[in-house]
């Protein structure tokens, strides 16, 4: 990423978004740690953890927007990449427990002792080292996306067919992870984490740091996405989204482009999952549930696909609403509300919150510039703007 590519990718909306995320990432942890508990401006720890979760969801939403909003790939299985990243982190956290587990086995996590494992399965090798786990957070979702995408895109599976097989993929993983003999904790998943890099995961300081890190990851993901979509590659992605076969006849290898963004997007989803797990304290197979992936797509639709900022905003708004409604008397009706929200957004705000706002702003800008061109034309000497570069 060159400085040139970075500056080109930033407009005002993006700058505001980054400033807000950075401010939250700094101020919320500081307020939590430095202000006395119970003071008006102090953010309680439970809220730091809750908002940290939202930030992870926002990263997942960005990942989905990158492929759906810009390349037209509607993945209904992105929760799988999120969960795989989460599992990689969970495995590291499990191995950090060491002798503090119920059975006190220095190598084997509790569930393995309980299930009479005699030795550590090979899949768990290396996860006692943070760097290895961090690498797997990127590599496992990335590799799965690469293999899946290679097969699907090369066979030109598109549209709803692709969406359906992504659902099948996440469902297959759900079933696999549910099995005790698959070696990842079965339906209980991984939990009872003690510490991360030597810090207690329950400690306020660790939670605040994880929140700040999540904000940092959101900023990084946003910058990566912006850089990609504002490069010429971004124009090719939109070309593929709007007229795939036309792009082929221009000599673009469509499957390579799709594979690139799909893999990149899966890696981002993996990072989101890895940051999510230490903040919620558990990862279990229900994270692979097909419904989770669909919910994530709804966040993007609500916020506005193809806008990036909208995707992140949608994730936060919808999840805030979810927390609000599922903790009251309306709890049993949440799924109906979510469904209604999706239908209403599709019907009334097809561009989502940010997309509708942008369209409204462009329209009023056009009106204003139409007025100014009339007056400017009189002055003459108006030159057409040359190519941006």
């Amino acid at each position, binding site marked *: 990423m060159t400085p040139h590519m970075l500056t080109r990718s930033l407009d005002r909306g993006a700058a505001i978004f980054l400033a807000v995320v950075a401010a939250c990432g700094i101020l919320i942890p500081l307020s939590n740690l430095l202000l006395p508990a119970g003071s008006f401006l102090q953010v309680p720890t439970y809220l730091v953890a809750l908002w940290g979760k939202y930030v992870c969801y926002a990263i997942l939403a960005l990942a989905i927007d990158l492929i759906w909003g810009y390349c037209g790939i509607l993945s209904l299985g992105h929760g799988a990449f999120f969960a795989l990243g989460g599992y990689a982190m969970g495995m590291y956290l499990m191995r950090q427990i060491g002798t503090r587990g119920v059975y006190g086995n220095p190598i084997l996590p509790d569930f393995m002792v309980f299930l009479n494992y005699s030795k550590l399965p090979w899949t768990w090798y290396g996860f006692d080292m943070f760097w290895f786990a961090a690498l797997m957070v990127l590599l496992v979702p990335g590799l799965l996306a690469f293999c899946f995408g290679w097969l699907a895109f090369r066979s030109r599976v598109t549209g709803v067919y692709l969406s359906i097989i992504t659902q099948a993929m996440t469902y297959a993983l759900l079933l696999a992870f549910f099995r005790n003999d698959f070696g990842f904790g079965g339906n209980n998943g991984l939990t009872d984490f003690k510490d991360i890099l030597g810090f207690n995961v329950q400690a306020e300081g660790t939670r605040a740091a994880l929140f700040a890190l999540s904000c940092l990851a959101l900023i990084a993901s946003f910058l990566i996405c912006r850089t990609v979509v504002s*490069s*010429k590659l971004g124009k090719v992605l939109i070309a593929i989204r709007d007229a795939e076969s036309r792009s*082929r006849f*221009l*000599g673009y290898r469509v499957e390579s482009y799709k594979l*690139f963004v799909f893999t990149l997007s899966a890696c981002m989803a993996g990072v989101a999952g890895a940051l999510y797990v230490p903040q919620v304290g558990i990862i279990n197979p229900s994270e692979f549930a097909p419904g989770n992936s669909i919910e994530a797509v709804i966040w993007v639709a609500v916020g506005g696909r193809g806008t990036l900022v909208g995707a992140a905003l949608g994730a936060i708004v919808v999840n805030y609403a979810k927390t609000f409604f599922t903790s009251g008397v309306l709890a049993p009706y949440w799924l109906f509300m979510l469904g209604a929200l999706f239908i209403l957004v599709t019907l009334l705000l097809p561009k989502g919150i940010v997309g509708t706002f942008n369209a409204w702003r462009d329209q009023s800008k056009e009106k204003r510039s139409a007025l100014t061109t009339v007056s400017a034309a009189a002055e003459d000497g108006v030159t057409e703007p040359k190519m941006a*570069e």
Partner: protein
Amino acid sequence: MNVMDTRATSAMLYLDGVHVSFDGFHAINNLSLALEPGEMRAIIGPNGAGKTTMMDIITGKTKPDEGTVLFDGVTDLTRLDETRIAELGIGRKFQKPTVFESQTVQDNLLLALNVDHSVKGTLFWRGSKAESERIDKVLETIRLTDARNRLAGSLSHGQKQWLEIGMLLAQDPKLLLVDEPVAGMTDVETHLTAELLKEINKTHTIMVVEHDMTFVRELGVKVTCLHEGTVLAEGTIDQVSSNERVIEVYLGR
């Protein structure tokens, strides 16, 4: 080995004994056709004569059941996919104007330029002066300089047709396949399009499919009439349009 020695034909495009059927329908039936380098050829024929299917075969969208399709005398196109064929230098304009509607006119041309089309090449792409000059030149040729920053979707039908021809120019292929370039155009636009194609033909080989006989006459080039997937007649417009069979199946009496 000298490339010239291996050429099977001097033709830019050579089709021999091509056959395609879809579910028993013979779309292309023993079709043979040759286009010399630098030639412009007009293809006419009734609906369902196989004109678009022929273009699909040349550009790799459809694989023929039988027959030879040679490009530049050496390359067997039936073994290659769309992307590879486009890279070799065959450009195509679709029957229905297909431009990237949500992008600006100049971005449409930028996407069409025959520069590095790899993922890495486009990710790290930085515009060059030569590239923007080429785009400027194409914009001038297709008379869309003033519309360069407009979204392609907001152009009129005729302008979209030209933008697509402009994209072909930016792509700078050796062979241009142009499917119904004047469909839906006004008389003036049709005339300008004929001029444009003649200009392009000075440096490119062109195959143009068109129903508009006035337009074909204006082009003044060799005409091939297809019917039921095979060549019915070939020659000057006067020869073809006075052919009994052509009148019977296509032009009408």
